[in-house]
């Protein structure tokens, strides 16, 4: 796993639910066919009302019309990110679009588990409401070893909450990789 993730910020508000992350009408594409998988990138975060997409001004789509990936790789959001349905298509779509990490005040449980167990995007938590100070398009650097986020555009560094228990699964790249490394698949089969 890389220890530094650098990229542009995409800023959202609170309660970004999984229908906004990937609307139900798009859940019909295969998650394994490479051509169809691209559609998850195309429609990632397409359900966010446009005035709330890319804060503070809004009106910025995560993925531009006609594209399959996003110029933004770090999502900044308020509390309760990923609430709603259990669809794993949600963290999957963010990954396909090019997102590598989310930094939110809190997460809904199923979404959080899906991010970690599926090894899609890394869900960091922050005690401060960073979506009020970071602007969409700011260049960010996420230091995974020290749990810090630096806004290179504004020259400010923030402390993030350590990943805690799940760090080992995140580092392994998902629950299956983790289980294999730790002989848990064998144990659980017994």
């Amino acid at each position, binding site marked *: 796993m890389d220890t530094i993730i650098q990229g542009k910020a995409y800023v959202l508000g609170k309660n970004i639910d999984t*229908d906004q992350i990937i609307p*139900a009408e798009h859940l019909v594409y295969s998650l394994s066919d490479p051509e169809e998988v691209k559609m998850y990138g195309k429609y990632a975060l397409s359900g966010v009302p446009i005035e709330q997409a890319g804060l503070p001004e809004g009106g910025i789509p995560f993925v531009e019309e006609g594209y399959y990936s996003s110029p933004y790789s770090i999502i900044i959001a308020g509390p309760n990110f990923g609430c709603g349905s259990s669809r794993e298509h949600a963290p999957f779509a963010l990954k396909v679009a090019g997102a590598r990490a989310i930094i939110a005040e809190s997460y809904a449980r199923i979404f959080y588990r899906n991010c970690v167990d*599926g090894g899609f995007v890394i869900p960091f938590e922050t005690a401060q409401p960073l979506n009020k100070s970071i602007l969409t398009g700011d260049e960010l650097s996420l230091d995974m070893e020290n749990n810090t986020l630096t806004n290179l555009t504004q020259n400010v560094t923030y402390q993030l909450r350590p990943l805690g228990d799940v760090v080992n699964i995140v580092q392994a790249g998902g629950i299956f990789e983790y289980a294999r490394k730790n002989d848990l698949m064998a144990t659980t089969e017994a």
Partner: protein
Amino acid sequence: MAQTITQKIFAKAANRKFVDPGQSVWLNVDVLLTHDVCGPPTFDIFKQEFGPKAKVWDPSKVVVLPDHYIFTANEHAHRNIDLLRQFAAEQGLPNYYDVGTDRYRGVCHVALAEEGFNLPGTVLFGTDSHTCTSGAFGMFGSGIGNTDAAFILGTGKLWEKVPDSMKFTFEGQMPEYLTAKDLILQILGDITTDGATYRAMEFDGEAVYSLPIDERMTLCNMAIEAGGMNGIIAADSVTEAFVKARTSKPYEIFHSDPDAQYHSMYRYNVEQMEPVVAQPHSPDNRATVRSVAGTPITKSYIGSCTGGKLTDFRLAAKILKGKQVSVTTNIVPATVLVASQLETEMYDGQSLRQIFEDAGCSIALPSCAACLGGPSDTVGRSVDNDVVVSTTNRNFPGRMGSKFAGVYLASPLTAAASAVTGKLTDPRDFL
């Protein structure tokens, strides 16, 4: 050591005497549920991780109920059903309920109950966030993603953190104008959409135990709307009668110890409560129906796992009997059984179906339909700037279709009363 009902079920499933909130444990899973949206990707991951020839841990414990995108011309949706069919055949799954056959049932959470899969004291995981519905049977039910479901398919186990519990006690006698939907929307307004994240929501009290199973399922169904891991109601004689009528499988009833520790406790007196709605665009955006009465609507929708059960339609029929709806009103029975009950169940000398047809409602085939939007040809889907009063469970932007639409979540009584007047209407005006 005192434990809550959820802790006791966790302890049993983890082969321990007791478990503490916050502790991570491996649970033995009794039933894994999946459907047409998340089944195919789950099976893909299972094959990828356990090998193309791998067999599921226990075919009798895997329940596959297609329900989300059934009656649509969408070719990808049809492909998903084909993939379920193929996997069920390969693995010899006895509990696959295929579309287009007499085995088709409809909405998974309601069908699980009808088919006797919900058993007190057991552990159910499902690839649908509303799997918490089954907590109405004094069991642990919770939603998971495809990867976790694939892990269970191969091993029969999953790790979970033992949740803290929150207790919601409803005292008093339920007034006729109040339903389980009003109770849960009241709670959501009080604790918000992340008020129970990673916790168990335990419901009890005289009013809760006076409710039929259908209504208890509605209460537990929306635990996820508060972020809850599970909702749960300890089994009583009503639960046992329901279960015994459907299965002879053994089960174990657990109760919370009187001195169990709770994260927080809430008390309500139902006799002092009013019908409420959740205004757009969040299930916690509560208002009394009185305070928003008169708001014009364009559609009424009575259906889904939380609003399409027999009890929901009995309530709606009480209001719609002998009246005309003034906006498009979709009646979507959750299951084939509920659809047939609309024919056989009588109210005031008429079948429920007749009452709805005479009132001018459209009656759809049993499935999830427009609860979650779905393909563009889905029955009842919101379009443009629709304002919908709906018995479903979620009203985030775009949930029922159009991003520009607004959805008011309400009880079947409120949805029916509003359908008649064409504006949000307190059901007490008709009762």
